[in-house]
């Protein structure tokens, strides 16, 4: 519905050149005192992407976002938007808008004036502004609240105003700084869905900063994981989860069992890895050959299956399986799933997440019960430590 309307700031030349990314971040760095907040980050973002910058607090993701918005000037590197370097441009000169973490709504202005703020600055005609505001109010379902001041709104409503205000100028790029952090869980989940739907409908490019890996996984089409000012991995959610590039990423994104490797042996397309805690494990050969350094075998808890006597016959060839004997050491019931901690006979611990597919607990394991934990070689990955 907004496709035929021109972008205020970008004008007609906004059409992205084929093959050229909308945003290109080239070796951008920012130092505060002696602290390297962002340390040589390079990243391409295509038009229409929903990109998430994920990382623990202090990893530099917010600083990177603030450099995109123009609140911080990079010490080095270039930020190209449609091929034009904007690294040193002031915030008001950029066709980029931001939705702030705590919304930063103007407390002295009504909902309508908050949304109209950016449109007035763009010098739009009165009628055009009114139309655009009404459109935005409808888009975020705030009808009837136009005259309210921010302190007369609920948290969820404020979040919508902030979103409408940031979207009103139809920026080439929308930055969202922890947009859902202030909402409670239920509201957060429904808002995630709405944000994705909105992004898809408007065909806009979103960059979201979050420390919540579930949020990033749910919404983003691609995730950049940041650690100590550097991009540790950039990948679609599934690849990030199933093929993390390092032990740190594997541990940061979701839960994972890790076994330090002590020896390795090639066996066709498989590696047999000797571990101290879990004995010999058969794993698929990694895509990138392992270096000389330390490495570990990683397996997600939901890929570890439990049974009383061992794998059922249909599950695959006996030889292609990792089979670990142990006893249940801890049970954590989570509703949809139950997490069992199994103390292995070899000394280590392994966590298995089992879906509670039956309402009655006939299948549940009890404490100290002997079980077999098993998984296929393709379910594990070998990671450099």
């Amino acid at each position, binding site marked *: 519905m907004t496709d035929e309307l021109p972008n205020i700031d970008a004008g007609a030349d906004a059409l992205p050149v084929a093959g050229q990314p909308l945003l290109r971040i080239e070796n951008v760095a920012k130092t505060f005192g002696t602290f390297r907040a962002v340390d040589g980050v390079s990243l391409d973002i295509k038009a229409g992407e929903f990109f998430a910058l994920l990382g623990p607090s202090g990893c530099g993701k917010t600083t990177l976002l603030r450099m995109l918005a123009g*609140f911080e000037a990079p010490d080095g590197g270039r930020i190209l938007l449609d091929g034009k370097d904007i690294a040193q441009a002031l915030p008001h000169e950029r066709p980029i808008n931001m939705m*702030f973490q705590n919304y930063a709504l103007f407390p002295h202005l009504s909902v309508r004036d908050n949304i109209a703020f*950016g449109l007035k*600055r763009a010098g739009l005609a009165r009628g055009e502004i009114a139309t655009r505001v009404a459109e935005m109010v409808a888009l975020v379902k705030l009808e009837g609240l136009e005259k309210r001041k921010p302190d007369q709104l609920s948290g969820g409503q404020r979040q919508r105003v902030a979103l409408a205000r940031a979207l009103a*100028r139809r920026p080439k790029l929308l930055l969202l700084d922890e947009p859902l952090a202030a909402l409670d869980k239920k509201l957060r989940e429904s808002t995630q869905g709405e944000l994705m739907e909105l992004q898809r409908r408007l065909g806009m490019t979103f960059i979201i900063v979050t420390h919540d890996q579930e949020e990033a996984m749910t919404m983003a089409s691609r995730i950049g994981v940041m650690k100590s000012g550097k991009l540790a991995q950039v990948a679609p959610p599934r690849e990030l989860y199933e093929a993390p590039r390092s032990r740190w990423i594997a541990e940061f994104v979701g839960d994972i069992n890790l076994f330090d490797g002590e020896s390795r042996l090639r066996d066709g397309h498989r590696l047999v890895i000797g571990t101290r805690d879990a004995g010999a494990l058969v794993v698929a050969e990694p895509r990138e050959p392992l270096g000389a350094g330390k490495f570990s075998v990683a397996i997600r808890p939901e890929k570890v299956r439990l049974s009383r006597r061992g794998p059922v016959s249909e599950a695959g060839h006996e030889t292609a399986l990792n089979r670990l004997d142990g006893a249940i050491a801890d049970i954590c019931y989570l509703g949809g799933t139950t997490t069992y901690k199994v103390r292995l006979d070899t000394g280590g611990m392994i966590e298995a997440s089992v879906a509670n597919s039956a309402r009655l607990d006939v299948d549940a394991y009890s404490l100290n019960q002997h079980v077999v934990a098993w998984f296929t070689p393709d379910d594990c990955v070998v990671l450099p430590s």
Partner: protein
Amino acid sequence: MSSRRIFARPARFAAITPYVWMVLFFLVPFAFVLKISLSQTAIAQPPYEPVFDLTAGWEALKAAFSALSIDNFRLLASDDIYVFAYVRSLTVAATATALLLLIGYPIAYGMARLPKRWRAVAMVLVIVPFWTSFLIRIYAWINILQHDGLLNQILLALHLVSQPVVWLSTDTAMYIGIVYSYLPFMILPLYATLAKMEPVLEEAAGDLGAPPWQVFWLVTFPLSLPGIGAGVLLCFIPIVGEFVIPDLLAGSNSLMIGQTLWLEFFTNKDWPVASAAAVVLLVVLLVPLLLYERLQKRQLEQGR
């Protein structure tokens, strides 16, 4: 015995205290002044009549009451000296307050944007001059502004002037003195509102396409209005009645109302006219005072 009774009495006492204070130290003295302003000057002790003598009986008291008149207020309205004094007081106060706002705002803004640990230092720097007696500080200014004072020496040394400038006994000197003395009263309320304001609001305005001057006018300035109001009134009201600074630093050709009051009281010994002038001053100042009250109330409501 319910616990409510135990706490009710001290609470009520605490609630009454400010009213008792107001009645004892504001309303009663004001009643005296009002009564004197309706009396006539006399060569006596006290220097006015009638005097209410409660021991003289009911008739005497009634006669005293009927002797009160508003002649003094008529005099104030008819004599240019007083009208000019009021006008000058209000003009000086308005000009000085505008100067204070212009100088105080950037200082307060700068302080509010300092890193946290430096803010306390800046605050101390603003307050420290108060540790020296007000009179000593004004005399120091006389020293600085006099013919061979520090200011003229510096100007001469820098060859900005060829001969000493007359500063003392001019309005300039008076404004310097007033602005210097009242600056903290402007800075502190401004600082309080500006420090409370989230800087991210300014970033948001910039992000939405506002160049820096618009960010100031559309966001920073309106959000600091409560502080501006408080600072303006905190300065304007006492400056209208200011006596010491204009008396020591300004020329004697045009007087502010405070100086006029002094003249009437101590030189002319005309207590009734002086009291009438004071009553009028109070009424004039009541307007901004009520404004200030309303502003504070609104702020309290917003802060809930």
